[in-house]
């Protein structure tokens, strides 16, 4: 029992502690407008290679990303944001990805959040 718990703790620490050294942060201005946009972007970027953490500030529409330098770079991250369907700084969104977005995330949609289906 003790061994097991210990090894799990060690494992958990290993996950959180690796490669802290060359972590950089970036803020990307996006065209996100609602809670669902926030989830779309955060969820997708969470699984992007080299990304440590993601947070979108809906007030400023800035997507803050902590990433491991060397595994990814700002250009790749901006490119990815456009592939989710949103503008990234000066890069325009991918039209196909935009088409697939939920109506509430599109231009002119009601600015209030829409309740997801859980």
């Amino acid at each position: 029992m003790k061994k097991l718990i210990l090894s799990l703790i060690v494992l958990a620490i290993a996950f959180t502690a690796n490669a802290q050294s060359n972590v950089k942060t970036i803020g990307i201005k996006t065209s996100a407008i609602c809670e669902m946009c926030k989830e779309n972007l955060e969820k997708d970027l969470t699984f992007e290679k080299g990304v440590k953490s993601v947070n979108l500030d809906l007030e400023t529409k800035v997507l803050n990303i902590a990433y491991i330098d060397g595994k990814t770079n700002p250009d790749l991250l901006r490119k990815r944001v456009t592939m989710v369907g949103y503008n990234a700084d000066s890069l325009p969104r991918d039209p196909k990805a935009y088409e697939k977005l939920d109506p509430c995330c599109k231009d002119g949609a009601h600015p209030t959040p829409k309740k997801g289906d859980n």
Partner: protein
Amino acid sequence: MKFLFLLFLGLLSSVSSFSQGKVSGEVKNNAQEPLIGATIQVVGKSNGAVTQIDGSFELQEILPSDRLIFTYIGYVSDTLPPVFGEKMVVNLFETDESLQTFTIKGRTESLVDEAPFLNILITEAELQKAACCNLSESFETNASVDVSYADAVTGTKMIQMMGLDGRYVLISREGIPNIRGLNSRLGLTFVPGTWIQSIDVGKGAGSVINGYESMTGQINVELFKPETMDQWYLNSYLNSFGRLELNANRQIPVSEKWSSGVMFHASQQFLEMDNNGDGFMDMPKTRQVNFLNRWKYEGDQLMAQIGFNVFSSESAGGQLGFGFNDELTTSPMYGYEMDTRKAELFGKIGMIYPSKPTQSWGFQYSMSYQDFSGGAGRRIYEGEEKTLYGNFIYQNIIRSSFHQYKTGLSFLLDDFDERFNSNQTGSLDSTILRTEKVPGAFFEYNYIPNDNFTLVAGARTDFHNLFGTYFTPRIHARWAFAPSLTLRGSVGKGYRTPNALMENSMVWVSSRDIQYKADLQPEVSWNSGLSLAGSWMIKEKPLAVVADYFYTSFESQLVYDQDISSDLLVIDNLQGESFAKSFQLEASYPFSERIQAKAAYKNYQNLMTTNGILQQVPYQSQDRFFFNMAYATRYDKWKADLTVNWNGPQRLPDTSDSPSEFMLATESPDFFLVNAQISRGFRWGSIYLGGENILDFRQENPIVDPENPFGENFDASMTWGPIAGRMVYAGFRMKINN
């Protein structure tokens, strides 16, 4: 919705006044979308309303001094004065977004707050915590359903609820009774885990709508729906015991109103595992192919679906080397075989009326054929079961939505044809033929005066062609008497027809003579229970605690008595008392957004008269502890899970008449079972790695006298713990959309 004034059992009455008026309007969210099913209550009075499909509501007999409370789950409640003569438009705002997503995340397994029954919903995310393999393993992270070990040969896992065998639980698939009859022991393994969207575990006598068979509880399995399933869902799983699984679900879009889904499962246990070196496979080799396809039509008023499920499964176990094609009765080896095939057609049809949203009807049906062929050692068995089931349900309200009812008619036909060799020689010389035809009618009344109280009173009468009339009354009540406390109570009767041979398939793997003394009678029980659920905010996070106590007593029971002699299994109707008391205390708490813990203590006093003595049912731990800890990073990129079960000592059947070297202790030792799993999410799905029984606990010598399987002391049925030891597994899940 014409009269919302309430008279319940003559307890409440009120004097009308002339200044009362009508109030009508709409409830919307801040995006101006109508909220359906929002409740409106009049403060301090018993009247109220529920919003219709367009968000509209109407209240009668409202005074200008009244205050109306508008509530909707996930939204902030609002209290407003009534407006007469014009439409009230009420906007409700969602509760704090961060809090809300947090609760939803935590709801991987949770008590259904609004349900009058003690219902625990197990979602897909919870099911994925234990990646293997089918319904029999879906309860590993659930405290209310226990998993037990059948025997040392057949590899069957059994479930128990309230300390009673799973055969007393009505297991339905989308409301249609599914795992029952000859299939009650094996059936759980024929519902692949990757087909399951969610499982609803109801403790206590359930609703009368689904029949009289839920004696201790109901487990309803919801499969993935054609209209909402992923376009592709692929899964493969491999474990260190040599089990390989392939699963594929495919959504087939047809048209706007039609949808279709296909689910496929193939699995194989290809290795002969003998971790304890007794010369017997710890579990049989198996091969299973399982296929389900259904079609769904969703019109404006009419909804219909039809589907079919076919599977074929083969098992070969026993002594090492016994193969799928070996003959049981002539092989020099002791073997176990079970081959079964099933074909089932099922469906539903239902109608709603947009002009009368409270009214609807539905009809559920299924017909199936299943055959079995197998046996153990020199015992051979063949069985066939044909089932036809139909259930018509009509739902409406009586004057207001405070009074809802469901009523309907059902029909069940069960045709059994079983053949076996009673004296364990070559031919199938004994036969059990039985046809049950059971038409029935039911009525269930729901009294829902407000959010805090629900009463469900139901009864059904069934006319059994062999056993006469069954009258099944059941009553459930839920009362949220304080903001964070909910009390539930239930009382109900239940019946079932036992199938002595298949339900005792674990005793086939022993030298015990099976003596069948009884004239077949239905099993009859009463179940009653009380539960208290509470939820408190501690450090801004909800600590949820549920305590429940259930008492089941049998009026009539088919008793499988292993205590009379170690050479016998005596099957007889209950002579004396039989009852089960179960107590469970469960608490869950999210320490942070990432870490959630759940712990439970269970105590079962399950006494039955065997060998003339009222004693604890064998193979049943009186005390159990359960602990689960889940860790997940945002969007489930990383997930880790740890489950610990402690099983207290179990009484073992009396073996005092055996030769001393084959005598068992009167009690098993206690033991821990530890499972853990880690998974990593990707955009396309996830990969997982896990271990079961990590401490490698094994029952020592699970088989009595394994060297002489055809001798008179051989017994592989006295199993109380795991046999095969530690298991490691890995797999992936892939979802493809667009």
